[in-house]
């Protein structure tokens, strides 16, 4: 089943919105880690770490494989790239809109000084 882009991105941004999870992703971007290793820097319980990893997995950002007793986690870069592309798109949108606003304000400024000058010469 193909999940809709809005749902996918929504889950990705929800996952990214937590600083602990972002730090976990930073760690995973260097190399794969076990759930235990991910939670260690935060001195977090296995359960709490598991919860965070669950959210990351659900967002498609992390893939978890069980090897014996260890749960190994790996970063899924394609979802991160999707999020980055989404952000870049909005960044472009607002840069362009604010350029347009700049032009509009310049137009209005010119029109204002034109009418002021007219008033003076009369």
């Amino acid at each position: 089943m193909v999940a809709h882009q809005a749902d996918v991105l929504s889950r990705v941004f929800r996952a990214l919105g937590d600083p602990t999870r972002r730090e976990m992703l930073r760690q995973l971007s260097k190399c794969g880690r076990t759930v235990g290793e991910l939670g260690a820097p935060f001195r977090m319980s296995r359960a709490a770490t598991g919860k965070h990893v669950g959210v990351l997995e659900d967002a498609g950002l992390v893939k978890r494989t069980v090897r014996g007793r260890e749960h190994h986690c790996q970063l899924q870069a394609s979802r991160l790239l999707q999020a980055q592309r989404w952000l870049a798109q909005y960044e472009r949108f607002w840069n362009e809109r604010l350029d347009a606003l700049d032009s509009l304000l310049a137009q209005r400024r010119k029109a204002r000084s034109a009418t002021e000058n007219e008033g003076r010469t009369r």
Partner: protein
Amino acid sequence: MSIPETSIRMVRVFKAPVEEVFKAFTDPVLMRQWLAPTLCRVVEASADPRVGGHYRVVVKPPIGGPTITTGEYREIVPNHRLVQTWVVERSKDPAHKYPTLLTVDFKALGADSTEITLQQDQLITKFDRAGNLAGWGQCFKKLDRLLVSSRVA
């Protein structure tokens, strides 16, 4: 690889008084003159700038159906701050909306100079929409500091 944030942020300075820049964001007569991407045109713009009020902007591209942006004003401090939801609905797929939260802070730098800081938080869930996203931002910042200090310890 860098981990993306969940919002975009930009700072801009305009050669205009703060009242005019603020008006450009809230008065539909002005909004329709800059909110359409190149080659598109705003075919409808309405706004009721008060807390709980709504706005609607309909943009039509040269080919294809319109894009409708709607939202609700969460916070309005005239000439200082605007917080509104910004929900985009594309005609290709009206069932799926893209809700974001737009925060614009306005600062008069002079009689004819205004600085704005625009932040857009992406794909806020319906859970976030009910709450105070700005408040959560503060909480996250505190948590971040706490985590950094506990890591160093």
